[in-house]
């Protein structure tokens, strides 16, 4: 019987966040601080003819102005791409560009000043002579022959092509198909907008030749590695990277950014601590963006509606440069999920990664998997329509049966566990699906546009087996580290290489460690985000923290426990196999003995005094484990949404949302529900409102909160969540990822509901986001009157 795992605990980190006591990079101060501001290109594509910074340099309070070439001459290297698919063409990307800008927001010069106000004043005094160049835009259009080539050596602006699956089986399926459905669709550009904008601070210790960098990163160790090996050249053992409290990332803070190179370089150059804090305006034009896929999808079916083949061609806009993991998202995180929840023998996915004069695109919550789910669940919806079947009945016909796990898809992945029929059973029950369809009849009879949408989605989370990641192009391993350090008094510090920026690790991981060691949650302190304190770790993304990072902590706690049993057995003069951790008394006791046994603290103290240890046992209680999972985990879901549409204005109201998820074992249901509900809101945001729009000249037209529409709480009904639990066999906790499914499923579920609402007008598909105007135009063009 578990005491902590599986139970809802309020997050222990929240009091400090809610009371404004969080320690964010922007709040940190060092004596003698200098402030960095970056001059950004107003052009989407232009050659830099000259830069005159003399007026800025002369301004009182300005310490220095640096141009791109100054940094290159000062030893700075280009930003690397960390995911290398075959024959990848990597465009050169300098932290500050020396000669040519390739998107609005590209860094052109660096000002360092005594105050952020002076730094901003100085930016206005720098004169840059630009020679504007034609811009190339559009994931697919940029590959066409007339398009301007953005980088030398990358013809057709195509950085890579990648394909996966069984082409022969696909061709056979289409040749023999009774029915084929086809759809062209766009998964639009999104802008992540974490609540906290990025920031970076650095301090150089000249005497020790040591650099400390504070940065808003989801993964400080990989950032240290990249800074050391590629961009800054300071040895890893002289470089400490700290990611303190971070206010949201959603993927956008995984990557190695130019400012993380510029700020420490400046701090060393001027021998003063230096800090840069992004404005929201800068965030819009420099944080890596999401999605932006243009897709053609075809699906083949037998006479009875059984799906036999899927053929997908996608053009993925990667922006002006390849961000750190950009090529991973449309390839190994997207095509690999094309099988969805279904048994489809012939799947073939082809992907082109293309370059445009826009902000680089990389992982954004869901990362590749929302794109996969969107195209698959949209074409499945059309398949159901073509067959004249209820969308749930059509999905049920094609689901992978529960007894076939582990299930090998034709697109590389082997699904760990699941009960997909069970998901839909639960969804139908929770949503009262039959009643909803009856109500729809009534609404439609009254002339209302009222739709019910469903989806069944799969996710690959918890990356990953390192060997598999390597074979797919990863430049790093994707294991995780965990250290459990029991202090002599019995208090515990647990170190994790994963990083929390909203996920609640300090609570969830304390639950896990307290459970393993039979102690209280308050006795466990979780430390993350500091390369100076924690063994190398890979950070947080891909819903990996619990499955990989939590498992590493379980492994190290198990080792601590085994050692404590040996020490206690020795001290109590019994055999280790007779000693156990007693849940009721919280002591370590001997089986069948009547005495009180030893307290956790007493055994810990014995380990450190080392006066009387078994002969083969070293002093101390400090264990580290590196957990490399045997497989990804495969969370899965069945979601449902109800929408109504105002015929007169095109406005959509989300009336109801129900999500049933299998995220394996749940450690903290409150936190998991928070992840799912927040994820759904973000997913619905893509369906209904969010769109990063670039003008023909490459200007970002939605460059502020006045124009980029984020989801708001008052536009949502209560989001109901339900769960089924099939434990993942690939990690000791049995958990699957929970961080992204809401986003993956939310978008297409609402899209299907909107299309269902518009179905009486004869509408099959509308591109996202479903703005009032787009829906109004659709209604206008499909109405008789």
């Amino acid at each position: 019987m578990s005491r902590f795992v599986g139970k809802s605990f309020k997050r222990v980190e929240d009091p400090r966040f809610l009371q404004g006591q969080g320690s964010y990079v922007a709040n940190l101060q060092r004596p003698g601080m200098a402030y960095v501001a970056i001059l950004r290109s107003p052009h989407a594509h232009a050659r830099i003819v000259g830069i005159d910074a003399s007026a800025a340099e002369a301004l009182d309070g300005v310490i220095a102005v640096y141009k791109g070439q100054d940094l290159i001459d000062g030893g700075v290297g280009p930003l690397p791409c960390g995911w290398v698919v075959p024959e990848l063409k990597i465009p050169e990307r300098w932290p500050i560009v020396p000669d040519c800008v390739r998107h609005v927001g590209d860094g052109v010069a660096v000002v360092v000043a005594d105050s952020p106000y002076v730094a901003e004043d100085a930016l206005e005094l720098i004169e840059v002579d630009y020679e504007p160049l034609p811009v190339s835009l559009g994931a697919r259009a940029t590959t066409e022959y007339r398009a301007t080539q953005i980088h030398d050596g990358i013809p057709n602006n195509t950085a890579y092509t990648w394909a996966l699956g069984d082409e022969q089986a696909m061709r056979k399926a289409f040749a023999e198909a009774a029915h084929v459905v086809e759809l062209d669709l766009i998964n639009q550009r999104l802008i992540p907008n974490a609540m906290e904008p990025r920031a970076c601070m650095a301090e150089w210790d000249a005497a020790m030749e040591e650099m400390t960098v504070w940065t808003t990163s989801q993964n400080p160790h990989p950032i240290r590695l990249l800074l050391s090996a590629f961009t800054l050249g300071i040895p890893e053992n002289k470089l400490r990277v700290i990611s303190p409290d971070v206010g949201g990332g959603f993927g956008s803070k995984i990557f190695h950014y130019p400012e993380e190179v510029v700020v420490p370089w400046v701090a060393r150059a001027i021998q003063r601590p230096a800090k840069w804090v992004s404005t929201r305006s800068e965030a819009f034009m420099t944080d890596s963006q999401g999605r932006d896929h243009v897709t053609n999808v075809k699906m083949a079916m037998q006479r009875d509606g059984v799906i036999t083949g899927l053929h997908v061609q996608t053009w993925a806009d990667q922006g002006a440069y390849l961000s750190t993991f950009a090529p991973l998202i449309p390839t190994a995180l997207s095509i690999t999920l094309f099988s969805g929840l279904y048994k489809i023998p012939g799947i073939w996915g082809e992907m082109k990664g293309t370059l445009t004069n826009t902000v680089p695109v990389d992982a954004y919550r869901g990362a590749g998997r929302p794109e996969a789910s969107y195209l698959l669940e949209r074409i499945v919806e059309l398949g159901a329509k073509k067959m004249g079947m209820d969308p749930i009945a059509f999905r049920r016909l094609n689901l992978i049966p529960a007894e076939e796990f582990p299930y090998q898809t034709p697109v590389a992945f082997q699904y760990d566990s699941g009960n997909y029929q069970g998901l839909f059973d639960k969804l139908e029950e929770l949503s009262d699906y039959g009643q909803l369809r009856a109500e729809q009849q009534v609404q439609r009879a009254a002339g209302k546009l009222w739709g019910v949408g469903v989806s069944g989605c799969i996710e690959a989370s918890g990356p990953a087996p390192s060997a598999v990641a390597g074979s797919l192009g990863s430049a790093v391993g994707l294991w995780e580290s965990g250290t459990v350090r029991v202090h002599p008094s019995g208090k515990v510090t647990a170190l994790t290489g994963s990083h929390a920026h909203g996920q609640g690790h300090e609570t969830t991981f304390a639950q896990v460690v307290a459970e393993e060691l039979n102690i209280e949650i308050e006795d466990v302190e979780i430390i993350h985000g500091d390369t100076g304190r924690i063994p190398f770790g890979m950070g947080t993304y891909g819903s990996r923290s619990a499955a990989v990072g939590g498992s590493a902590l379980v492994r190290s706690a198990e080792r601590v426990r085994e050692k404590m049993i040996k020490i206690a057995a020795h001290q109590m003069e019994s055999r280790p196999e007779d000693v156990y951790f007693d849940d009721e008394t919280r002591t370590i006791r001997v089986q069948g003995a009547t005495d009180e046994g030893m307290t956790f603290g007493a055994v810990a103290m014995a380990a450190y005094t080392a006066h009387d240890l078994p002969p083969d046992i070293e002093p101390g209680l400090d264990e580290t484990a590196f957990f490399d999972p045997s497989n990804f985990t495969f969370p899965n879901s069945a979601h449902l949404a109800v929408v109504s549409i105002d015929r007169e204005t095109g406005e959509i109201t989300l009336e109801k949302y129900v999500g049933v998820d299998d995220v394996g074992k749940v450690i903290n249901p409150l936190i998991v529900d928070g992840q799912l509900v927040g994820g759904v809101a973000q997913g619905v945001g893509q369906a209904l409102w969010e769109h990063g729009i670039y003008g023909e000249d490459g200007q970002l037209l939605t460059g502020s909160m006045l124009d980029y529409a984020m989801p708001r709480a008052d536009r949502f009904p209560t989001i109901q969540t339900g769960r089924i639990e099939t434990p993942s066999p690939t990690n000791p906790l049995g958990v699957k990822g929970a961080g992204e499914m809401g986003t993956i499923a939310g978008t297409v579920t609402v899209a299907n509901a909107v299309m269902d609402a518009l179905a009486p007008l004869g509408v099959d598909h509308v591109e996202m986001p479903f703005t009032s105007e787009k829906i109004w135009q659709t209604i206008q063009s499909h109405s008789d009157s």
Partner: protein
Amino acid sequence: MYPANFNYVRAGSVAEALSLIESEEDAKFLAGGHSLIPTMKLRLAEPSTLVDIGRIEDLRGISYGSGDEPDCIGSLTSHATIATSQLPCALVEAARGIGDPQVRNRGTIGGNIAHADPASDLPTVLTALEATIRVAGPEGTRNIEAGDFFTGLFETGLKDNELITVISVPREESGAGSAYAKLFNPASRYAVVGASAVVTLDAGKIVRARVAVGGLTATAVRCGAVEAALEGNSSSADAIKEASSQVAADVVDDILEDVHASAEYRLGIIPVFVARAVQSACSRAA
């Protein structure tokens, strides 16, 4: 987001505010700061001096009129105060839909109309309500009718160094009702389009109608054609719908277009919001 250098002075009275603004080159009044400060941070505005009028208590609050006396709203009155007031429903409704609680708590009616954003709700409502805007300046005080106050995109009839002091709104006569209806911009919550109506009913007939729309053109527009079609006619849904379609005759030139809405869409849906405002005003009048 750091503004350019500026001086800051605080005025204790209207007279002091007027004297301070006179004595400084290129100075601006600061009220709630919800439009001015962001534009300064973006360096779209770089005033040399801010004259903070935020603590002039005489300018804050509502004094309700009686009989023919209008309700008088101090220019520093916050949207939140208006949203919970006894002022005409149209104004209360519009104030409730502005921004979010933080914006409503800080933003002021005077600052809002002085900024004259074409997507703002209050100019539309004040135009329909036939409000009067009292301003104080170096040459004394004067009154400007709301319909004349808004002169262009972010442009008003305010002269240099004039300060809005009071917005006076005629009290609703018996049998009258008012309303505001808008399509929210999903990002900013400004109006993509908005419509306000003030109607007086007598035995099911609309005897007086004042209608204005905003968000379509540079300024709020009084809808004479709609008013004419409404007055003397029934307040049935069909009659209102028919009259509301006349709005096309009231807004003809230079319809705004942006990433949120084309001119075609704005023109296409404005009759719907006019009808909704009129309908709702009628139901309140009844």
